[in-house]
């Protein structure tokens, strides 16, 4: 909201002609005192208005960043209008079912969005003491997630994928199938696309349409041919709406953001143009803080019904998990679902790598009263056994399968069944958590009972059977 007390004479002041244009950045000299991160409007010769924000302000020059790119601007003909307030968007529940660009302007041909609630897109840091520790199990119907890397309401769980892997399919499947057991509450979906192809955006729209949930989805699209700079604001706009829905409207929101790698590349672009000192691979030193500003907006709040569950998708360049983007994401998010190209090649969907995948919030969201009492130990045993399978496979590739001990043969069989029957499922297959756990026991039966170190005797009696 504009503050009438603040700089009444200066806000809204307009300057004709700028001093330098470099990529998406514009430099203006000799302005009035301009606030850091204030919203600006940039008007070109044809009268087209583009939005931007102040990146740096000093007594003699101001640097602004224009979200819609600077093509067609001229030095003398460009007009810059400083609004004297930060970038806000107006948000409302009616935004569900509609399509917007990265700045929150409708691009579905419908009327412009109007609402009384105007929120700063940068958000504010949630007070850690106000957070509710997330522990409600979300059933996604996907065994490898529900059973081994459980998604919790309010969690941020990214998918670390690679080009050509079915991350979009998995994200869409989660969005379709996610539910809280024992309730009817549906998830509202906020979808932010950053620099993805038209086909990908179309795939999601289709998938939401087919399952009839499109009315419950708000899409923010900044596609591959949109100015790269717009990608920087897209996730913030989307998350601002998500925060409104979750904490003002008490809804459960699932935010899908794809592709975070494109977002980070835009950030690198701006950083390079500004001549900042790079850290790893040319990415700016503040990449971690910047990603944290986005990811940390998920969660649950004490005394509020709603929640934001965040599902960022990122493609690991060259499938390298130690690349700065997945690496820094992994340090902020609460676990990760990692895809493995080799499994995809063998036709396993979803190709979730068993060992590097992890859900940090799983420990408090599963077990008696939440999923089933055998879940924690079963998951732990599956992990341990599968980890041994990897060793056996390595050994087999050196000395040949024939040389393996009978026990190791059991493990190979377990590994095969685990991947084929437990991990692998159809894209429209929605398994209940009981089905998932029972499947887990079924594949464990390929191992002799002495090998099950992590399972109690009672559980063996009840589930492993004879």
């Amino acid at each position, binding site marked *: 909201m504009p503050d009438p007390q603040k*700089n009444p004479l200066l806000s809204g002041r307009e300057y004709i002609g700028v001093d330098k244009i470099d990529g998406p950045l514009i430099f203006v000299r000799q302005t009035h*005192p301009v606030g*850091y*991160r*204030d919203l600006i409007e940039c008007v070109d010769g044809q009268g087209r208005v583009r939005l931007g924000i102040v990146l740096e*302000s*000093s*007594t003699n020059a101001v640097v602004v960043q224009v979200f819609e790119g600077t093509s067609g601007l001229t030095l003398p003909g460009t007009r810059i209008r400083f609004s004297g307030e930060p970038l806000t968007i107006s948000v409302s529940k009616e935004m569900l079912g509609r399509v917007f660009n990265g700045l929150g302007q409708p691009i579905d041909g419908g009327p412009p969005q109007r609402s009384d609630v105007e929120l700063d897109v*940068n958000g*504010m*840091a*949630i*007070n*850690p*003491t*106000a*957070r509710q*520790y*997330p522990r409600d199990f979300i059933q996604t119907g996907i065994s490898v997630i529900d059973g081994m890397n459980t998604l919790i309401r*309010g969690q941020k769980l990214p998918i670390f994928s690679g080009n050509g892997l079915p991350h979009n399919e998995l994200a869409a499947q989660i969005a379709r199938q996610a539910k809280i057991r024992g309730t009817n509450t549906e998830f509202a979906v906020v979808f932010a696309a950053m620099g993805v192809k038209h086909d990908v955006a179309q795939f999601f729209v289709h998938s939401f349409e087919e399952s009839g949930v499109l009315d419950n989805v708000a899409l923010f699209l900044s596609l591959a041919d949109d100015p790269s700079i717009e990608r920087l604001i897209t996730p913030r706009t989307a998350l601002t709406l998500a925060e409104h829905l979750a904490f003002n409207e008490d809804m459960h929101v699932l935010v899908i953001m794809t592709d975070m790698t494109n977002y980070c590349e835009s950030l690198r672009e701006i950083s390079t143009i500004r001549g*900042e*000192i790079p*850290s*790893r691979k040319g990415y700016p*030193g*503040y990449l*971690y*803080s910047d990603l*944290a*500003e986005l990811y*940390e*907006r998920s*969660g649950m*709040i004490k005394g*509020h019904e709603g929640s934001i569950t965040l599902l960022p998708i990122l493609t690991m360049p060259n499938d390298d*998990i*130690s*690349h*700065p983007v997945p*690496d*820094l994401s992994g*340090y*902020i998010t*609460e676990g*990760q679902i990692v895809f493995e190209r080799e499994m995809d090649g063998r036709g396993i969907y979803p190709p979730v790598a068993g*060992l*590097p995948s992890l859900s*940090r919030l799983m*420990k408090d969201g599963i077990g008696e009263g939440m999923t089933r009492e055998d879940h*924690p130990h079963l998951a*732990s045993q599956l*992990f*341990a056994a599968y*980890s*041994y399978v990897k060793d056996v496979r390595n*050994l087999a590739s*050196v*000395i040949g399968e024939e*040389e393996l001990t009978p026990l190791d043969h059991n493990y190979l069989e377990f590994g095969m069944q685990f991947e084929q029957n437990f991990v692998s499922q159809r894209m429209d297959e929605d398994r209940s958590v009981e089905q998932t756990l029972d499947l887990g026991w079924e594949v464990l039966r390929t191992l002799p009972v002495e090998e099950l*170190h992590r399972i109690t005797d009672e559980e063996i009696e009840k589930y492993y059977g004879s």
Partner: protein
Amino acid sequence: MSDRIIGQVKRVNGPVIEVMGITDAEMFELVRVGKENLIGELIKLQKDSAVVQVYEDTTGIAPYDPVYGAGMQLSVELGPGMIGTIYDGIQRPLEAIRELSAIYIERGIAVPSLEREKRWHFVPSVSDGQQVSGGMVLGTVQETENLVHKILVPPSDSGVLKSVVAEGDYTVEETIAVLLLEDGTEKPLHLMQRWPIRVQRPTRKRLPLDIPLVTGQRVIDALFPVAKGGTVAIPGGFGTGKTMTQQAVAKWCDADLIVYIGCGERGNEISDVLTEFPELIDPRTGRSLMERTILIANTSNMPVSAREASIYTGITMAEYFRDQGYHVAIMADSTSRWAEALRELSGRMEEMPAEEGFPAYLPTKIAEFYERAGSMESLSGAHGSVSIIGAVSPPGGDFSEPVTQHTKRFIRCFWALDRNLANARHYPAISWLDSYSEYLNDLVPWWEQQAGPEWFADRTEIMELLHKEVRLQQVVKLVGPDALPDTQRFILEVCTLFKNAFLQQNAYDKIDAYSTVQKQAKMLHIIVTYWQRGSEAIKGGATLVKLRKMKVYQDIVKMKFSVANDDLSGLDKIEARLERAMDQLEALHA
């Protein structure tokens, strides 16, 4: 706050602000910027301009905004009321902020660090006319059931007490004594004092580090112990369990007080600690763990410059309790985020970078921080210690990066977390090959006194086996285990047993979450006995299968869950059974 204007904003670039027209200002002076009174600190002075780092989001700050100086350095308030409180990086109480600004942290909020209204029952232990010097105890406040908060004379003051109040209830700001300084001026003393965060509190001398900080975590206490007053680094890539290890240590270690610094980490982790700690019971005092914990939370989305300060805020509080004669342990999670904050601020000030964009003074800063740890004799003669356990988050899990490398120069205990162990869900994923402790030899006498004379020999023996195992595993990878003789396969067998039965520890199991040193020593001894007797039996002609099929083997595997800390007779029984089974086996082959 004073409203002395010291200058005007010249340039804003994120949290770094250049100020012009400086009249009088001192280095590291606490300042407030703009109409919203954002808190900042002056970090560079040059002629009439200065650089200020602001601890809050600077959106909206414009050139020519006023900058006010507070006339003092960035300091923390030290006094009763800190324990059980959760602060942000510059010691603002987050619970109190929440009452003022709902779920988000609004900017420019000013809340005193210590509650001003609350009255504490003060029992003086000095009287009028007494000569006192800095660091001496004026009296006590029973802050929690188990912690007596000693009120100290500020370290820099000494003189004669002109008056002391009677026993009674006082707020932190009320005068409890008047001190006549040597220069003749009078100085009122309060329950509360201030201390600048970047300055180490003075002590009389450093003491040798010969008592372990017992953590109840077997891999730590038995293999890589840390001394009270020691420094530890826990490096590990994401998902290897840095936070889990730190939380386990924070929960179970035998320090009197824990300062837990969440520096640039996840909000939900803080919320986890806040939900879990009040419910957990400290095994030594029988009281809630929150009653011995101070939390500092500067989550990753909170302003980056306050992240830089949070480490110093935490250690200053720890030093204050050390001076009262307590053993304090600091968990800093993670020091890499702190180093990255330094890098970001340095970049914004356009300083010349050294390795990977980090400033050249990074090692100096790391050294300064870790050197504030130690076991000390305080100015009043009390013995206290500050131990630092710092997590390091190396990018890509690569330990050759600057923060890990520089940290290794200044710490003496290294718990390296291993990605492969974590992937196999072997927790705590502390690698027995890469970790080390330089405190080991100093701690042997304590261990032998507490847990019997065998401990050190047992430990040496098992470490030797673990190193042998690595070489054998390389052979196994090439030719398979069947090619090894039984004597060598038995080494593999014992190492697997040791990993499963001893090193792995379930933080969520009621019994296994914590092991006393006595239990650890006995467990270790049982496994070493199994190895020694077993390898003799193999030499005598017994087979590996027979050794593995012994009934007592399963007892050993499950002893960590089945034998409670307060009754170790179960371990004695297992040991006796083991000896009997081995005797039988030997008799069979004799």
